[in-house]
């Protein structure tokens, strides 16, 4: 177990390091001369050279990366050029809508995806299977902004059930916030349920073909009991993994939906940073988002080993 843990940990740290290098190289390639930007038009060449030395930008790139990484590890992601605050603070302020949104969306995706996927697997090859797998394929073909615009037209503009956009007033109670998140969560939930349906179906089909399921049937258990108690329990392990990763990918991956609904989330923070060329924000957000994904992935890996004794430890 300890060796397994160590090797997984090492693998994760390597991936995190590569993520850091990628983010650093990408944003460095883009931002041009940050000092010239920082000092503005009136700076002389001598000024720029002096400040460059001050900030260590005359050093070779790997050394600069070392400096940057040291700051990052101490929790300093730099200052936003436009927002007049540290990048960590900007991210933190945007964390709430994004977190709530991705949790709600995953809940909706699971509520739709699990029953449909189970039904698809149980009635494999029948019309109900075709219907649900067809719907899943349709869900994977709809652009999120389009579904968002359509739902806004119907449920916000015509029926007036939900706000057209935004996240309520700054001091709004949680209920109002959740209400404002209903439509965007429905968009993401519906679209992501496609993946959950397909995955649940595949996972259930795997398990339903196993010997112990046949045993359960042959000892006279009802089909409902076999499916829900015996098969589903084992099929759920990989499904929960996918649900976790889906939630993780929505941090930052929900950027289009956040923009359609005018939500002040992490995704729209990045888009605005891109539009304003606010590189410290792009850099910090990319790093944090990818790191969260890697960490969640790692946690799920470990859980796997704990839950499923078949995983080679």
């Amino acid at each position, binding site marked *: 177990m300890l060796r397994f843990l160590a090797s997984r940990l090492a693998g994760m740290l*390597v991936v995190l390091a590569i993520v850091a290098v990628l983010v650093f190289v990408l944003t460095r390639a883009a931002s041009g001369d940050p000092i010239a930007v920082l000092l503005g038009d009136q700076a002389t060449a001598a000024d720029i050279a002096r400040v460059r030395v001050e900030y260590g930008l005359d050093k070779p790139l790997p050394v600069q990366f070392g400096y940057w990484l040291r700051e990052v590890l101490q929790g300093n992601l730099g200052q936003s050029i436009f927002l007049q605050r540290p990048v960590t603070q900007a991210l933190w302020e945007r964390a709430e809508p994004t977190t709530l949104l991705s949790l709600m969306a995953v809940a909706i995706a699971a509520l739709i995806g699990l029953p449909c996927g189970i039904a698809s697997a149980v009635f494999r090859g029948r019309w109900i299977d075709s219907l649900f797998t067809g719907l899943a394929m349709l869900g994977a*073909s709809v*652009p999120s902004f389009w579904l968002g*615009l359509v739902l806004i037209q119907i449920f916000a503009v015509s029926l007036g059930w939900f706000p057209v956009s935004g996240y309520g007033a700054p001091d709004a109670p949680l209920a109002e916030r959740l209400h404002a998140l209903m439509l965007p969560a429905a968009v993401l939930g519906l679209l992501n349920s496609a993946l959950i349906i397909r995955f649940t179906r595949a996972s259930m089909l795997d398990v339903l073909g196993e010997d112990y399921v046949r045993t359960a049937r042959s000892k006279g258990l009802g089909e409902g009991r076999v499916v829900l108690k015996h098969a589903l329990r084992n099929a759920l392990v990989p499904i929960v993994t996918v649900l976790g990763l889906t939630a993780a*990918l929505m941090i930052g991956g929900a950027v289009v939906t956040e*923009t359609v609904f005018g939500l002040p989330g992490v995704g729209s923070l990045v888009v605005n940073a891109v539009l304003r060329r606010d590189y410290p924000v792009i850099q910090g957000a*990319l790093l944090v988002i990818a790191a969260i994904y890697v960490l969640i992935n790692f946690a799920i890996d470990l859980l796997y080993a704990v839950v499923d004794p078949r995983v080679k430890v």
Partner: protein
Amino acid sequence: MTLRMPRLPLALRRLLRDRIVAVALLVLLAVALLAIGAPLFASADPNDTAVLERLRPPSAEHLLGTDELGRDLYARIVHGARYSLAIAALTALGAVLFGTLLGLVAGFFRRLDAPIMRVVDAMMAFPDILLAIALVAILGASLGNVVLALVLVYTPRVARVVRASTLVLRELLFIEAVRALGVRTSRILWRHVLPNLMSPILVQVSFIFAYAILAEAGLSFLGVGVPPEIPTWGTMVAGSQQYADRAFWVVLFPGVAIILTALSLQLVGDGVRDLLDPKLKKAV
């Protein structure tokens, strides 16, 4: 007679046996034809503005209505298909090319496996659309850079699939046999491994094609993709979205074009997978 039939038509015929896949293929064929012959099928200039004709509902004159500048929506969708399809096709092609190369090398050479796959893991830690946005921001917004960014986003996905299949193939007896015969590694890869990867690669092509259409639309919608003056299905929705409450068709029809094409692509990809999967499973 069947003996003389070349292999591809046979596979195609078997694919067409599934009626839904056949319809999907027909839709794709129609979309491709419309895109290629755009000036023939839509005589109106897609960029011709007519202020007096703005936001007209669908009619005999304007089949799908007009947008906020009075441009004919049908002409724009047909001409936009050229850009949307070209971007997606190039993305699928590029991602499959690089992804196959990486996956093949990682799967076949044990030493290179870990380094390549850790980079792939790292790239897949970024949400697709976010990585695409960041890359376009860095490269600059243009048609070519959108393609380049999307290729970089989808290459790791292909690499993973190809590596997994290569790992299985590598252990098979016939590969061992050609190795024992002393066949050069490059020849083994090209003549013996690659042809057996064609089915998973083909499936990836159709899926990435579909994803790329959606991703391009998303990027354009956010204003970080293709320049707005180029009519793609994404820029059309992006440009007209604030008129959706008065003229639903400006958003509805380009969206339907996206959905129809992406859905057909995935149906065909799924059909190909179903067709080829039994063989793959037997090999495992």
